[in-house]
């Protein structure tokens, strides 16, 4: 069932290390629904942006407001590019993030395992899974907390297509049921498939925030145009 979420207001957040701004005076009003894909070259500030949203990093100044107590980043979960897998079974990995495991959560964990194509691996040591399976497990672990906001930092980088398909399917389903998703990727085609709107970041600055179809049809900035067409390389943007 679709839930209408309030929008997310980002007011002038900045993040710097040793005086160097990795994200500078970012001001955005992001839709509280759908999938927002964050695009940009390596070192552009995408991960910093995601970590600031999740609260893993504290902004030097500015604020992030979600307009509702229930729909907040306190109720978010993050999936990173390199999944952190605990040295225990697949099921234990999923249940670990819960405070007190209720019987219905065990059922939910089993369902997530099945949905993400890990059937029959409940009691298998999670360390023996393939890279793609580990990433799927990481997503299942995030979903068991029933987050209102899901933050994913290049979750499909370096994994096999099967896992990517599973992950994309689950994300599309979650998004349509009201979970706000932020998704960082380098894959333009994946962004086209998933995104409702796009944030384009370059050198620590958000250059664009537009509807996905508009962005891919006619990006406002020249830099975004170049990025889409593959002209901007990581080296160029970093310098």
């Amino acid at each position: 069932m679709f839930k209408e979420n309030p929008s997310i207001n980002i007011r002038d957040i900045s993040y710097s290390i040793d005086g160097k701004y990795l994200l500078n005076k970012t001001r955005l009003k992001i839709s509280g629904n759908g999938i927002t894909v964050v695009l940009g070259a390596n070192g552009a500030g995408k991960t910093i942006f995601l970590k600031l949203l999740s609260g893993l990093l504290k902004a030097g100044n500015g604020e992030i407001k979600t307009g509702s107590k229930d729909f907040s980043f306190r109720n978010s979960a993050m999936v990173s590019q390199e999944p952190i897998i605990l040295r225990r079974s697949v099921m234990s990995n999923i249940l670990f993030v819960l405070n007190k495991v209720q019987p219905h959560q065990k059922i939910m964990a089993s369902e997530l395992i099945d949905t993400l194509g890990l059937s029959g691996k409940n009691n298998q040591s999670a360390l023996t899974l393939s890279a793609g399976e580990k990433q799927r497990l990481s997503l299942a672990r995030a979903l068991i907390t029933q987050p209102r906001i899901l933050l994913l930092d290049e979750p499909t980088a370096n994994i096999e297509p099967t896992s990517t398909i599973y992950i994309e399917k689950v994300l599309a389903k979650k998004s349509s049921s009201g979970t706000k998703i932020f998704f960082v990727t380098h894959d333009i085609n994946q962004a086209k498939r998933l995104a409702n709107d796009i944030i384009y970041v370059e050198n620590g600055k958000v250059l664009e925030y537009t509807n996905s179809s508009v962005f891919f049809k006619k990006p406002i900035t020249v830099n975004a145009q170049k990025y889409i067409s593959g002209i901007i390389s990581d080296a160029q943007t970093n310098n």
Partner: protein
Amino acid sequence: MGQITESFLEAFILILSLDTELFEILYLSFEITIVAVIISSIIGIPIGTILACTRFYFRKAIISIFFSLMGLPPVVVGLFVYLIFSRSGTLGWLGLLYSPTVMIIAQVIIITPIICCLTFQTIESLYLKYREFFLSFHIGKVKAIRAYIFDSRFELVTVILAGFGRSISEVGAIIIVGGNIDHLTRVMTTAIALETSKGNLSLAMGLGIILLLIAVFVNATMIFIKNKFLNPSDQGL
């Protein structure tokens, strides 16, 4: 060469005949070592864990002190414990000098820093790996610490075995505080030293073989645990 072969043969006869004196020494060695390792683990593992996953003032200084204590010369520890527990020492009234208890105390002083530092290194590598994940899921400190210990359980077994290996082969400190008294404080290492000086090479050799076998067994177990349960790519090693 003939004397070595003869001693070897006599040593094996002693072992196979379950010689009472030899097994009395063996029993006391294990008793002292195991108790010392248990006490050191109870002290060292929590301290190492706290140092690895908390941040406070003087933390680095405390870590440096523990690492320095790893290199404590056992004879100095023995002398220090002797002075404390000798009749004129601070704790002389306890009358513990030349008893297994004081030998355990000396062992604990020697191996606690080893267990603490190895635990610190093990837990810290997991802490650095898990920290962000735990933060993002709002995992509490107690649950996190339990996870660090649980997930490094196999490494911690090897840490304890390392402490055991160090403890069972200790001689310098325990000969000073234990006095190498027959039927009371004589352990494998002190007995080897004494029997060699007396020329009783068969008993010394017998004990030496057993000590060597224990060392081999401990190391083999450590290697087995590492190979069987620990995947280097998952440890960030």
